[in-house]
């Protein structure tokens, strides 16, 4: 598929109210051209509503939506030139694959020969060339979803929208489909918005991730920065796993220290911290905590294993410490600990995540 002219999507002060309920409040976002942005958040946070506002299936209560240089907020979905992939695939069961994919082309009164050609191209893109005559109930879930993707893309829309497309796919299949979707999006260059509640999926698939909570944006940025530099405790908890610990910030001249229970950890120079000393929240990713049976440095937290689980490639441990119960993982080929073992958790200061918003 040739690269389309990618457009920038802009939402300005978009609000959506359902009666007294404010599902979205004054949202302003920019989606860079040609990128895949994921809206991530728990159920009911408003991400699907936002997606549907972009699609035109819902209308904004107030605000503007710009596709490139055009304000489309008043346009219905039929006129907005978007393609959408639904969670339930939404393939028409009474039509063949070909008629499904070619539906939009026929609506636009395209020449039949061109229709079959473009349908063939679209199906080839998703590796389903030859399936034209099949019916949706003859396809597996993964195949149905691929047809849905082909159908969304065949009209070369300005914007591509994905509404939790992989939720109903077997977990084994999810990874390959995810990669396929990403590849298609990249090669086509269509600006895309993707909704999911699975944060691992979000990190894998996106150029940018927007974390939404209760109708408001918590943080927006590339996956790496969301993972390593979460701005709020919510983001820290939602993306990846983390142990959020209450700690105290101490400043000693030019150096900064974090006190975790009995342990004092010196923070590296570049680490951003709040201006004042006092209580702060620290996030420790499970894989950033290294378990050893002896204390090998001063920056180690003492603890006792309360639970250990063998997961195959890793061991998962719950460890009771002075700063609370911590959750960590360690490769299974290393020493495997049992409950009631005394261990020491070693932290590297660069890996500490300081959460700026203590709220």
């Amino acid at each position, binding site marked *: 598929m040739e690269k389309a002219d990618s457009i920038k999507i802009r939402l300005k002060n978009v609000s959506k109210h359902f009666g007294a309920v404010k599902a979205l409040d004054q949202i302003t976002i920019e989606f860079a051209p040609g990128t895949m942005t994921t809206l991530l958040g728990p159920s009911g946070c408003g991400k699907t509503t936002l997606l549907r506002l972009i699609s035109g299936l819902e209308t904004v209560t107030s605000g503007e939506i710009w596709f490139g240089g055009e304000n489309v907020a008043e346009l219905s979905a*039929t006129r907005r030139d978007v393609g*959408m992939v639904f*969670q339930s695939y939404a393939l028409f069961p009474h039509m063949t694959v070909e008629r499904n994919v070619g539906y939009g082309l026929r*609506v636009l009164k395209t020449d039949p020969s061109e229709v079959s050609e473009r349908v063939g191209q679209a199906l080839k893109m998703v590796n389903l060339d030859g399936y034209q005559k099949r019916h949706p109930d003859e396809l597996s879930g993964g195949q149905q979803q691929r047809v849905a993707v082909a159908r969304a893309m065949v009209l070369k829309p300005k914007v591509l929208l994905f509404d939790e497309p992989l939720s109903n796919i077997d977990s084994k299949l999810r990874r390959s489909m995810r990669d396929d979707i990403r590849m298609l999006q990249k090669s086509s260059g269509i600006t895309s918005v993707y909704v999911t509640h699975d944060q691992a999926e979000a990190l894998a698939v996106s150029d940018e991730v927007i974390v939404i909570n209760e109708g408001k944006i918590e943080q927006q940025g590339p996956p790496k920065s969301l993972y390593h530099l979460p701005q709020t405790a919510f983001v820290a908890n939602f993306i990846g796993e983390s142990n959020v610990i209450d700690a105290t910030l101490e400043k000693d001249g030019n150096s900064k220290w974090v006190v975790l229970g009995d342990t004092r950890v010196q923070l590296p120079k570049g680490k951003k911290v709040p201006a004042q000393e006092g209580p702060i929240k620290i996030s420790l990713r499970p894989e950033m905590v290294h378990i050893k049976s002896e204390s090998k440095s001063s920056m180690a937290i003492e603890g006792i294993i309360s639970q250990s689980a063998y997961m195959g490639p890793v061991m998962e441990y719950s460890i009771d410490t002075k700063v609370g119960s911590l959750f960590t993982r360690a490769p299974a080929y290393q020493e495997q600990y049992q409950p009631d073992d005394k261990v020491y958790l070693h932290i590297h200061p660069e890996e500490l995540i300081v959460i700026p918003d203590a709220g």
Partner: protein
Amino acid sequence: MFTSNTHHALVKTAPGETRPLTILIWIIAGFGAYWFLPWFALEYGLFDATIEEYLASLGWKTRPLTLTVPVFLALFIPFAWPWLPLKRLGWVYTLFASAGIGLIFLDFIRTGEAMGFSAAVVVMALAAIFAIGIAKIGFQRGDSFISGAVVFVIFMVLVFIFYPVIKIFNQVLISRDGSFAPFQFFRILTSFGVSRVVFNTLVLAISVGAATTLFGLIFALYAVRATTRLRYAVRILYILPIITPPFVVGMSLILLFGRAGMVNDVLMFLFGPTGIFTAAGSEGIFERSGYIYGFTGIFLAQTLSLTPISYMLLSGMISTINPSMEEASLTMRASRWLTLRNVTLPLIRPGIANAFLLGMISSAADFGNPLVLGGEYDVLSTEIYFSIAGAQLDFGKASTLGLILLFLSLAVFMIQKRWVGQTSYVTVTGIQTAGNVTPLPKRMQQLFTVFISVWLVLVGVLYFSIFLGGFVKQWGADYSLTIAHHRELWMHGFASGGWPSLKNSLGYSFIAAPFTTMMGVLIAYIVTRKQFWGRGVIDFGTVLIFAIPGTVIGVAYILAFNTPPVELTGTAIILIITMAIRAMPVGIRGGMSALSQISPSLEEASLLQRAGSAKTIRSVLMPILRPTIVSSMAYSFIRSMTTVSAVIFLATAGTNVATTYILSRVESGDTGVAVAYGSVLIFTMLCFTFLVQALTGRSRVEKQVKTQ
């Protein structure tokens, strides 16, 4: 486990297995009935019989000794032979019970007497013992409750469905003078009148089917998708024709459009020979004529009455369409209209086919409207009635026509099951999808609004005329208001006027409703959950229950129960049973739909906790099914109150019901009284419906009716 090959009668029994005490109770009941209840049917019923008649009917003098033997033996066996193995015990019960039943029936057939209460109770007791017996042999894995239920249901189906239908076949093959005449069937078939009648019925059925489907679709789309306030009116008012006796709509059409009709008067006034718009000397463009009688009237009346049912079917289907599909269509540049045409309508195609076939069957089975409005247009249901009720008394003809109607109905029903049952595009996937319902295209909504408003106004006027008609002295001639009609019906004491029939209607319906629902749910339970030998009987019986038109049941019951051994005509019992059978599809469908949503694992969990089937059903299923049962009973009650096509054959002066009373007044020309009664009936049903909906929550009755 408790069950083993050696079994002591007094040992603790396994769950589901019948305790010996239960068996003993059945034996004693049968025995007591045998000796102390009337063996032969009493001429004037139990309460009107004299002491001599009662004693004579006990039949002690004529009691054949052979019948006491099996009863005695069954009584003594478990106690004289406590070490009998379980299976043997089962065989003993089974054999003696069936022998007993067989002997009793043969004896009655031989002597030509009619069975009385005693015989019925004894047969029932023996059937219970039979069921317990086969359970002990291993039927249904020893579960005597289910075994009993199966035996009971099969027994009911055999006696009250198969036996009467066989009698019809029988009648077709035997001519008026009693000789065997198999070719009578063909002679009747090819006689001139009959083919015309069949043709009429078919043409009417197809037209009404098409009309109700189209209009039902319009209403359904509007009620679910429109954005105007009017859609609420549709959702509330559709219930009116359902709770109205069907022929009342026909009557109201006569009130408006008949020769003496109000609208007719207006038209005459404007355009008739002496109308104000007519030029002097000319004949005017309108004549007072009976244009409402015949095809037009019946078509109109049936369409008005039957569209709500089609509406409910289709609106149910539309509501279950996954909104994402229509949204996907919208995002692919399709307008609302294109989406409707290419996506929505094809998805509900099975529902449309279903509605059409249902409309056809209902039209063919309708009796009241063709009777009232038919005029020269004869259809099968009225022809059947006139074959018996008129001077002809030609049971051969009635049976032949009845068979034709039955086959017609069965054929359509089978098509419905085969075709429509298989292709269902609208499946509930269980996936939570966000999505709004796509509204109607603008112009379509405007068009529909106009159409529906006109329709609702017409229906409103019709119902208004019914209520008004009760208070008008002489419709068409003297429009002064009076309460004379109502006075005649209601104010001359409870034993005259409309009270006896109203009391009968209410009483019979009230008794029939719980019985129907229980049977229906039981049948649904057995059919959906259990496999067994003899299931085919119940399956086919159920098909017959669904497909058999009311007139055919009426004729069949006259043939079957007018003569010994089971003589029930003229009693209240036969009416109650008729009502129960007519309303049974409600209970069965409701039960099946409710049970399909309950996972079998619930019952399995209960059974694993050592509860038998009876306890499981009582403690686990009944509470969950309670809403279904309540709404089922309510709807059965409504149906029983408004049924006419079957009861018209069976009601007598003493067992008259509201609907037949109204019809008889119509036939004798007392329109005012008939309409007055009709309005009271409608009002009663409205109150009842609101009461039930208030008590159980709105959606219950609607949901129940929607599963039809």
